[in-house]
């Protein structure tokens, strides 16, 4: 019998084209997702060297980072540089014959939401994109990670990547989650535990009862932020939840091919006794709703906590924490729930799916946002937007005083006009709280969609469980 393999080992082995003596492999890529920010130089490289896209049918392009999310966006993009980037993608997609969802297509959206939604992302695949949040697709048990633009060009030209194998890391979440605790809290709690460098050099497999119990939307939220923990890829073994999500999607296999695919997908799990280089275990019932207080995704605390002091840390983190506190304008000892916010952003590839919007709407139904708070909901794709409207979620958001936007990356990284002003503080469902991430001088607190909705109503960071008590009463 062969040695037991991890899920990562199995997918890797199925995609090795060739291996050099030093272990460097040429890995075949099943799906290549492309957006407008990290691809223009790659297409230009192809043109300069007279190369073609090797597998245009396996290449899917969609503009997302720069696109306006206002309702009148059909009139075009005001910012000249943004417009040039989106126009370049239009032209490159056409010239090189790749699959394309332009801004005018209802299926347009954030690349990591579009891929799974249309059945491009399937279990056991290798998926890459010039975007670090490609880790999202690992929720399907596909090996998915971000690449740089030189590698984008390499994949376009050869449909392969030169890779050395990463190490295996297991992150197990045992037991059940408590009420009010979501996939976002899991993924933030893990990063709080491991630090942003904890997964460096590793591919994470998330497992355990609390992970199994998550929907596909929740699993995508968990894998999405594997990169914030330093791991290029996060994986979850496919199961009935996965198969039910995939079945019937536009580009999912049908008929006899579905059966054949299913047979293989059911072999995609980590064998008993397979070796992991690193193991982290958290108890699901001990995870609380969390928020970030600083400017690194590892700066995670339960919402019931208080702002730490720089002296609470060790080594290089002391200076980094002092810098974060200064940037965030926070005093040590302040209760997290006493932190007032100006803006609420609900959206992004982390939390811009239908389930996220439902969670926010549940809090917002019949309520109004606090005076002086600006809040927007940006669905992850045109299809998510249409689904939400079918369910009447748009009315709940509009009645509560939130803006209901078109699909795109929006204020997650503020490359379009959706930005924080200097000093503004945002309760955000996105993935990074870096300095300047949501706009120069902007201050970001990361949290789940339900917690962001609570903050919108109260005007300060708020424990979602207090809202749940109100509803139970």
């Amino acid at each position, binding site marked *: 019998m062969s040695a037991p393999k991890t899920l990562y080992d199995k997918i890797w082995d199925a995609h090795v084209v060739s291996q050099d003596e030093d272990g460097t492999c040429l890995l075949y890529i099943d799906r290549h997702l492309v957006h407008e920010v990290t691809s223009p*130089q790659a297409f230009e*490289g192809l043109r300069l060297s007279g190369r073609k896209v090797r597998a245009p049918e396996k290449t899917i392009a969609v503009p997302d980072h720069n696109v306006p999310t206002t309702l009148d966006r059909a009139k075009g993009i005001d910012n000249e*540089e943004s417009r040039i980037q989106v126009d370049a993608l239009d032209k490159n997609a056409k010239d090189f014959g790749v699959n394309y969802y332009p801004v005018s297509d209802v299926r347009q959206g954030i690349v990591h939401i579009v891929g799974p939604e249309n059945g491009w992302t399937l279990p056991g695949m290798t998926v890459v994109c010039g975007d670090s949040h490609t880790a999202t697709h690992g929720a399907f048990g596909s090996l998915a990670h971000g*690449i*740089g*633009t030189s590698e984008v060009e*390499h994949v376009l030209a050869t449909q392969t990547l030169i890779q050395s194998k990463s190490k295996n890391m297991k992150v197990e979440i045992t037991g059940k989650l408590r009420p009010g605790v979501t996939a976002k809290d899991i993924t933030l709690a893990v990063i709080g535990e491991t630090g942003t460098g904890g997964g460096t*050099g590793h591919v994470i497999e998330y497992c355990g009862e609390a992970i199994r119990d998550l929907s596909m939307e929740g699993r995508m939220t968990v894998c999405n932020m594997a990169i914030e923990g330093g791991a290029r890829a996060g994986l979850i073994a496919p199961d009935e939840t996965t198969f039910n999500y995939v079945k019937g999607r536009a580009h999912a296999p049908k008929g006899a091919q579905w059966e054949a695919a299913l047979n293989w997908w059911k072999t995609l799990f980590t064998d008993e006794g397979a070796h992991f280089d690193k193991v982290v275990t958290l108890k699901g019932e001990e995870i609380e709703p969390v928020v970030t207080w600083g400017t690194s995704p590892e700066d995670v605390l339960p919402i019931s906590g208080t702002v730490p002091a720089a002296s609470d840390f060790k080594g290089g983190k002391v200076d*980094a924490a002092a810098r974060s506190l200064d940037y965030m304008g926070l005093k040590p000892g302040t209760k997290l729930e006493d932190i007032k916010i100006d803006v609420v952003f609900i959206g992004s590839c982390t939390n811009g799916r239908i389930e996220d919007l439902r969670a926010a709407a549940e809090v917002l139904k019949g309520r109004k946002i606090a005076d002086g708070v600006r809040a927007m909901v940006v669905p992850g794709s045109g299809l998510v937007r249409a689904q939400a409207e079918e369910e009447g979620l748009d009315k709940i958001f509009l009645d509560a005083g939130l803006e209901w936007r078109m699909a795109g990356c929006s204020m997650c990284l503020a490359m379009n006009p959706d930005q924080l002003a200097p000093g503004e503080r945002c309760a955000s469902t996105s993935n990074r709280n870096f300095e300047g991430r949501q706009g120069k001088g902007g201050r970001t607190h990361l949290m789940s969609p339900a917690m962001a909705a609570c903050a919108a109503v109260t005007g300060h960071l708020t424990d979602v469980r207090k809202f749940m008590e109100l509803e139970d009463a």
Partner: protein
Amino acid sequence: MEKFEKLTGIAAPMPLVNIDTDMIIPKNFLKTIKRTGLGVNAFAEMRYNDDGSENPDFVLNKDQYRQAQIIVAGDNFGCGSSREHAPWALADFGIKAVISTSFADIFFNNCFKNGMLPIVLPQEQIDVLMKDSEKGSNARMTIDLEAQEITTSDGEVIKFDVDAFKKHCLLEGLDDIGLTMNKAAAIDTFETQAAQARPWV
């Protein structure tokens, strides 16, 4: 790609941990369709004041470090996004090597594609190099890739590890795509076999 063989230059100390790609090149400079010209905006938010003037406290604005070619950095340098604009910006500024205890994987990879050498060393050795870099322009550090050695201004020699294939590509200035194109037959074979084994892909 430009070759990297041996470099003697000024090293700038950046001891802050978790220097992320948004710090290295803020997103407002990602709206370019070119690879060049990003150096002027490297570290823009730390390097410039709101009125566009230089922040005199930022290390690369100090006279002795304006010509720096090496950065000695705190843990987890280059964490964050996959943007290759980060190494493009550093290279355009004139940086050819970054030394730290750890790098984010994607940034690390992207450096090699741009003729730039990221070097991982244990904390004690980073401490030595950080101290050496604090001497400013009077001190030159030498990085010899072939020998896999760093020599401090005091003559102390520190060995480092580097992936053999990546070293070969840097020393020869090789273009990955050209190398892989030579393996087209193996890719054809893989595609034929995969189409039978997993026709739904």
